[in-house]
Every structure is written in structure tokens, then in C-alpha cells.
């Protein structure tokens, strides 16, 4: 018998002990899976089911209508608009926040006397409730707020109008929410990048320095960028999933307005269910959104392989 196999635990414990291990494992995962079945898996199937029904739980007015919900949702211009709107939002926010998070990480990864406290302060928005932070940002973008009275009079790089009422402007309300979310989520991803940076063995940097990789750009191009590919994929995917489900901030700050400028799919889904009582359409819209997320993320199959293997 192979010596290594003999001392490995599977064979060291008899087959009955192996059964004990399996039974313990199932007992350990049972509570989780009970909760997952009740509050995740079954709801997913049930949502799928009601997406083919006219479903009104309050008046027991329920009947099968096939693909009608999907078709009427897809034919609804405000839904299509909300999808395009959120894709535009996602593209802008994920791109900028990923770069910002990376550069914040490069900066705050330096262990200097000031780094710990400053990093803790920068991280504050990432733990604050989106509702609370949104309310503070109503002030930031209000006509009497921070942007108009502190930022634009001194720095106006993009030639933005002075004294604009940002959140009531169809042009600027959505970019304002983008700016706020880039500002508040970049620090979270910064921490993920810092973890990625610290996982790079210092020997690699030393060896690269001997090979002449010394400038910041070269270090970025030949070390950080390729070594942080997993981290970047994670940051992008988490960013995508979060952005596409934008809701709290829009609900609190603009409620989808002005004139639908900040209308996003979750607003549509919420309104269908809770204002119009058309749960079937709500469910159908959710599954279309699900499909969008799958399309955007499942292209990264290698990533999920690595994540499960890890």
C-alpha cells in the first residue's frame, strides 16, 4: 500500500469514520441550505413561475398568460430605457471606480506614519448606509451645497455651469449619482486591491528591479497589472453586479426623476409590483435583468473556476 495514502486521513480513519465525516458535514451545511432553499432557491423558482402568470397576490387574481409578461416588459419603452440607462451607468462607474480603487491602493499600500488613519477615513463611505450617505449627498449637490460653493468656484476642470441645481437637472442628475457612487465604493475596492498587492511576493519586485523594471509605469505594466488580474476581475464583477442593481441611492435622491433621467431597472421592478400590483411583470423584468448580469459576468468563466478552486 502506498505510504502517503496510508497515512492520509481518509484511510487512517475507517470507512465508518468517513461516514461520520460526511454526516457531520451534512449536518454543518444543513442550516445554511435550509435557509438558502427557503429564501433563495425556492423564491427564484417561484419568481420564474409567476413570471408566466398574471399574478396579483391580494385579489387571488392569478392565471397563466405564457410569455405575455416578458413581451410586455420588453415592449415597454421605459424598461428598455432603464436597462440602457443602467448599462451606461455601470460602464462609467465600474471603469472609473476600478482605476480609482487601484490608484488609491497603490497610494495607501505604502506603510507610512499617516497611512493607517487616513486610510480609515477614506474607507468611511464604504461602511455608511447608502441611505444616510445619499442624504448627505443631496446636500453636496444642492444649489447651496458643497459642489456649488466650494468646488466649482475654485476648480472647474470640465467647464461645468455655476450654481446649477444638479439633482433637478435632466443632464446632471445621473452623473451626480455616478460621481457619488464612484466616490463611495472605490475605497471598498481599494481594500481588495491592497490585499492583492500584498499577495505579490517581494522577490518578484526585486527580480524585476534587477532586470531594469524601475519606473512606476513599467512596474504597473509588467508586475502589478498581470499579477492583479484575478483581483481586477473580482473588482469588475462585484462592481457590475452592484451597479446593475442600483436602487437605494436613486430611490432616496431622485426617485427616478427628473423626467426619468435616473430611472433604473430596479425602480421599474419596484413600481410594477408595489404601485401597479403586476407581480408577474415585475418577476419577468427581474429575470431579464438576471440574464443581463449572466451575460456580462459568465464571460469570465475562468474566474469562477479559480474562485471555487481557491
Amino acid at each position, binding site marked *: 500500500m502506498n505510504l502517503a495514502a496510508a497515512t492520509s486521513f481518509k484511510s487512517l480513519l475507517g470507512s465508518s469514520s468517513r461516514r461520520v465525516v460526511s454526516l457531520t458535514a451534512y449536518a454543518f451545511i444543513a442550516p445554511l441550505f435550509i435557509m438558502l432553499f427557503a429564501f433563495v432557491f425556492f423564491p427564484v423558482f417561484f419568481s420564474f413561475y409567476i413570471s408566466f402568470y398574471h399574478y396579483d397576490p391580494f385579489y387571488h387574481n392569478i392565471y397563466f398568460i405564457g410569455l405575455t409578461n416578458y413581451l410586455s416588459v420588453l415592449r415597454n419603452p421605459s424598461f428598455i430605457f432603464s436597462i440602457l440607462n443602467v448599462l451606461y451607468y455601470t460602464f462609467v462607474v465600474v471603469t472609473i471606480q476600478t482605476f480609482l480603487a487601484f490608484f488609491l491602493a497603490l497610494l495607501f499600500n505604502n506603510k507610512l506614519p499617516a497611512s493607517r488613519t487616513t486610510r480609515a477615513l477614506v474607507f468611511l463611505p464604504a461602511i455608511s448606509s447608502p441611505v444616510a450617505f445619499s442624504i448627505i449627498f443631496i446636500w453636496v449637490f444642492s444649489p447651496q451645497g458643497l459642489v456649488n460653493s466650494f468646488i466649482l468656484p475654485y476648480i472647474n476642470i470640465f467647464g461645468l455651469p455655476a450654481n446649477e441645481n444638479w439633482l433637478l437637472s435632466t443632464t446632471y442628475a445621473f452623473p451626480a449619482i455616478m460621481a457619488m457612487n464612484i466616490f463611495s465604493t472605490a475605497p471598498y475596492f481599494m*481594500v481588495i486591491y491592497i490585499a492583492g498587492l*500584498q499577495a505579490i511576493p517581494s522577490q518578484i519586485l526585486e527580480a524585476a528591479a534587477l532586470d531594469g523594471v524601475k519606473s512606476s509605469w513599467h512596474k504597473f505594466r509588467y508586475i502589478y497589472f498581470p499579477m492583479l488580474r484575478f483581483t481586477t476581475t*473580482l473588482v469588475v464583477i462585484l462592481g457590475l453586479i452592484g451597479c446593475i442593481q442600483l436602487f437605494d441611492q436613486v430611490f432616496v435622491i431622485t426617485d427616478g426623476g427628473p423626467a426619468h433621467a435616473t430611472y433604473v431597472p430596479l425602480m421599474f421592478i419596484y413600481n410594477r409590483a408595489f404601485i401597479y400590483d403586476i407581480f408577474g411583470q415585475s418577476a419577468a423584468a427581474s429575470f431579464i435583468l438576471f440574464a443581463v448580469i449572466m451575460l456580462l459576468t459568465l464571460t469570465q468563466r475562468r474566474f469562477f473556476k479559480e474562485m471555487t478552486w481557491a
Partner: protein
Amino acid sequence: MGMTVSDQSSGQLTRLLKTISSSFRREEGNVPTVYRMGRLKSSLLQAAMVVLAIIYFIPFYWMILKSFRLSIFAGFPVDLNPFSRTSISNFISNFNYVWGFGNFPIWYLNSIFVSAVVVVSSVFIGALAGYAFARLDFPGRNILFYAVLATLMIPFPVITISEYVFMVKLGWINTYQGLMLPQIASAVNVYLMRQYFLTIPSEIEDAAKIDGLRPGQIFFRISAPLAKPAFAASAIFTFISSWNNFIWPLFEIQTTGMYTLPLALNFFKGANGTQIYWNDMMLATTISLIPTFIIYVIFERFFIQGISLTGTKG
């Protein structure tokens, strides 16, 4: 805990060496830069850090400042002078108004109660499952773990629409159990716990196995106590997400008496029509953030560790 290294087989020895070498690598990875940094460069970097910290803190700074002022208006230009128009008595007067508005103490207690129950149950369930996925070998382990991770990709409304319907059917709309139960199953906690248990050298558990402990005993007596940082991190994450949760309470809660703080803030915001009374609003926002900030200040280390654990491969 005696480690029985003398009769290690070659397989276990290589594993041990791998563990040791990987822990070394982690140590070395913590060295910030391999180059000696000049004084100028170091001060420039620190200046950049301080500037960023100020930028990031200004919204909160104004929030705190405003809760010490009486004017309901935002003011133009914004007055950031900490001594201008601020006083403790203003704060007390704002506080009395906010605390007496609606059911603020009840909203606070609701938030605390819901978060506490969710944290305890979610962390416990997550730790058990995370341990099983990291350390116990059982048929279907990978596929089940994959199923747990896949839940991270399901958009919130796909689940919530049905959960809302279930709550209607069960008569659990506007109840605590309806508020809490859907928040308990957390893939993030399972993943975080699993990642941490994977970093604990398996030799420790192997020794316990040789001593005759059963897998369940090993978890409760040996592995769980070693995983305190992971427990702390996932407790904090769960607390933050439950405390900040807005969309599920928005679906589930119908009377103001059952509000949690995010709903209460949103309600408070609309209390005077389009005019927000900024002094009271900012005081309400401040007190809703205080528990988060306290926990953050105490456990900052675990926050960072937890995010790092979820963010790197094994």
C-alpha cells in the same frame, strides 16, 4: 497541542512545507516597497493621503457640524468653520426634536434588534458551512459550494418579489421574523469563513483526529476558537449590511412603528415636503451612523482582514 511530525509521510511533509512557505510569503508580501523611499517621496505620498482623507471626510464633517447648528438651511457659501454658530445647546435642541419625531427610539431599537439576531444566526450558520466546505470531505462538496457562490449573482429582485409574496401568504408582512429571516443566508459569510479555515494548518486538526476527536468536536473545540478573526470579520460585515439594508425593509414594512433606521431616515427626509430641515436631518443621519462608526473604529483591523480574505485566492 502536540504535533506528531516524527512519523510524517512524505505527502504530509510537503504539505507542511507548503504551509510554512506560504505563510512566509505572506509575511514578505507585507513589506510595502522593496526600494528605500526618499524623505521627499514619503512626505509627498503622506500629503496625498491627508488630502484624500480630508476630501473623504468633508461630507461627514459637515453632517456633524450641521447637527450642532440651528438653521434649517444648507447655507451659501457653505460654512465649514467649526466655531461658527455651533453649540452644545443647539445639538440638544435638535436632538430633542429628532428623538421626539415619530418613533425614533423605536426605530433605533428595531434596527438594533433585527441586526443583532441576523448577525448571530448568519455568522453561526456561515461558520458551520464554511468549515464543512473547507475541511470536511463529503460527496457533492464542490457542486454545493458552487451553488452557494452562484447565489451571489442572483439579482436582488428575483428573490425579493417571491419573498414578498411568501410573506403575504404567511401573514408575515410587517413582522420581525419577516424582516429578519431573508437576511440570514449569506454566501459572503460562508466564503469568508471557508477562506479562513483553509489558512489554518490542517496539521493541527490532524493531530486532534489522531487524539480521537470527532469532526464536530474538532470544529467546536479547536478550529472555531482559532478562527476568531474570521468570526469578527463576518459579524461586522453582516452587521453593516443588515443595519444598512434598505430595499427589503422597504418591501416588508408597512407601518412606521416597524421602521428600521434607513426607512426612518428616508421618511424623515420627506417629512417637510421638498424642504429638508438640514439641521435635524443631519442630526438624524449622524445618530444613525454612530453604531457603525463605533464598531468600525474598534474593529477596523478585522474589516480590512475580512475584505482581504474574500478578495484573494486561497
